[in-house]
């Protein structure tokens, strides 16, 4: 119980505080900060109040002395959804980080992912920005690790779950959820029997951080604790590229999927056994 008193929740922090918490003390510098008021050009005309940072914080600084850019999504603004401006902030920051590396500056990147994916009020511009983000992650990853963190409570969905799948390393907490399709959308498209969006234990059992880690679809499982998350990210940033990028293991996953009897409905234990075998 005393341990609990010493912990500071990461999940409860906003995007800006999260970025600050990960960077070396005194090194946080925000780009296109909220005072510059670069806001969505599309929301007001639809009766949605825009936000001065469009829900994305881009911060430069260092972690363990290494040059780092952090892109942190604010889950509290429009569900962390990505529109044109927020999406361009992330893509543009990653593009500049890759350019740094081509110029001999070893800038690394950390993505703090709390997002439902595309902001539907800016639909096709959100989708295009996410394609740019994917492109930029793959480019930067040639030089330096890109670390994804899904802490919660929004989770990481839609096209940004694909971005999570492109990261060199993915860090999750128990609060995290990671999936392509949001529960409501699956229920809408496939029916209640297929996916009950109101059954929270069911959804966490399939897509929660612990399950993703135990299935080999995430690399680190951490407590909701600022110090532990900071230390984990720092260690991964210093580690360099992974031995094998998860998104490059097509032969492994196709072989595992070929072994699966896809007829019965699936449960979490089946996924763990299929992907991790004796390790689970």
């Amino acid at each position, binding site marked *: 119980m005393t341990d609990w008193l010493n912990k500071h929740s990461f999940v409860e922090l906003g995007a800006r505080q999260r970025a600050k918490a990960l960077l070396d003390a005194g090194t946080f510098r925000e780009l*296109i900060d909220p005072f510059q008021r*670069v806001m969505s*050009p*599309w929301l007001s*005309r*639809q009766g949605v109040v825009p936000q001065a940072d469009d829900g994305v914080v881009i911060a430069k600084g260092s972690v363990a002395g290494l040059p780092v850019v952090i892109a942190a999504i604010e889950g509290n603004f429009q569900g962390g959804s990505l529109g*044109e401006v927020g*999406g*361009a902030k992330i893509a*543009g*920051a990653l*593009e*500049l980080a890759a350019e740094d590396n081509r110029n001999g500056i070893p800038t690394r990147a950390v993505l703090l992912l709390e997002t*439902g994916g*595309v902001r*539907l009020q*800016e*639909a*096709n*511009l959100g*989708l*295009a920005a996410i*394609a*740019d983000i*994917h*492109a930029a992650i*793959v480019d930067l990853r040639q030089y330096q690790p890109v670390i994804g963190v899904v802490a919660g409570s929004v989770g990481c969905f*839609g*096209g940004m*779950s*694909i971005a999570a*799948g*492109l990261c060199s390393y993915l860090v999750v907490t128990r609060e995290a959820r990671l*999936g*392509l*399709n949001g529960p*409501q*959308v699956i229920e*809408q*498209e*496939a029916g209640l029997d*297929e*996916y009950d969006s109101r059954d929270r234990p069911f959804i966490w059992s399939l*897509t929660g951080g612990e399950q993703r880690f135990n299935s080999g*679809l995430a690399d680190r499982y951490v407590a909701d604790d600022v110090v532990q998350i900071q230390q984990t990210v720092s260690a991964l940033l210093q580690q360099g590229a992974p031995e094998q*990028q998860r*998104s*490059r*293991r*097509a032969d492994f*996953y196709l072989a595992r*999927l070929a072994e*699966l009897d*896809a007829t019965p409905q*699936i*449960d*979490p234990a089946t*996924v763990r056994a*299929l*992907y991790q075998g004796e390790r689970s």
Partner: protein
Amino acid sequence: MRGLQWFNALSAGATPVQGLPDSLQVADGQLNGQSVRFLAVVTDPNNRFARARNGEVGLLEGWGLAKAVDDAIARGDKRPLIAIVDVPSQAYGRREEALGIHQALAAAADSYARARLAGHPVIALLVGKAMSGAFLAHGYQANRLIALRDPGVMVHAMGKASAARVTLRSVEELEALAASVPPMAYDIDSYASLGLLWETLTVSQIEQPTADDVARVSDCLVNAIKDIDSADLSGRLGASNRAASSHVRQLLREQW
């Protein structure tokens, strides 16, 4: 079925690539004397994953596309990749989420992006729907996007019914907004106004292309391949309806 029709028409006489899921059609053929690889996701009524039987991009399709593209990269000849896009959606289902469909789609996007960075010209030809995660996995990493001009060719982030539910609107309200907000629209002309397309083309029979249609589209593909002058996606920037995307990049560079 448009995807399959265009795949068959463009890849006539090409050599099929074996060892892939039945929901993928991949073949090595010729375009104006140049070796290219054509890739399409097609319907497969016997797909082991029931929710990916209608041309959706699911687990097998994502990992399978990755394999097909990686195989092309491994050949080392930097042959152009032509993604024929007619994908109604990603697969929506419990098995898909549980087994990490996001990771399968990441693998496909990863492979296409690496092919582009490695110097393969990558072209996406939109002949039908190009929806959301399915398009991100199959086509959106291309150097050049080409769309046929037809009401059945559409790009979007989500189907109308689901988009209405998530944004707490009726489908009618959503359609009314889409008419005045270009990025929300489903039609290809609104999409073209965002500057993301390199070219749009009109053909006479999009469902069953004529020899003339195939010749025109082939010419366009050849020109697109020749036009590629960089490995990145910067060619998509510059439209007035996407001005903020350029503005943000400029500010980031100034403040970097």
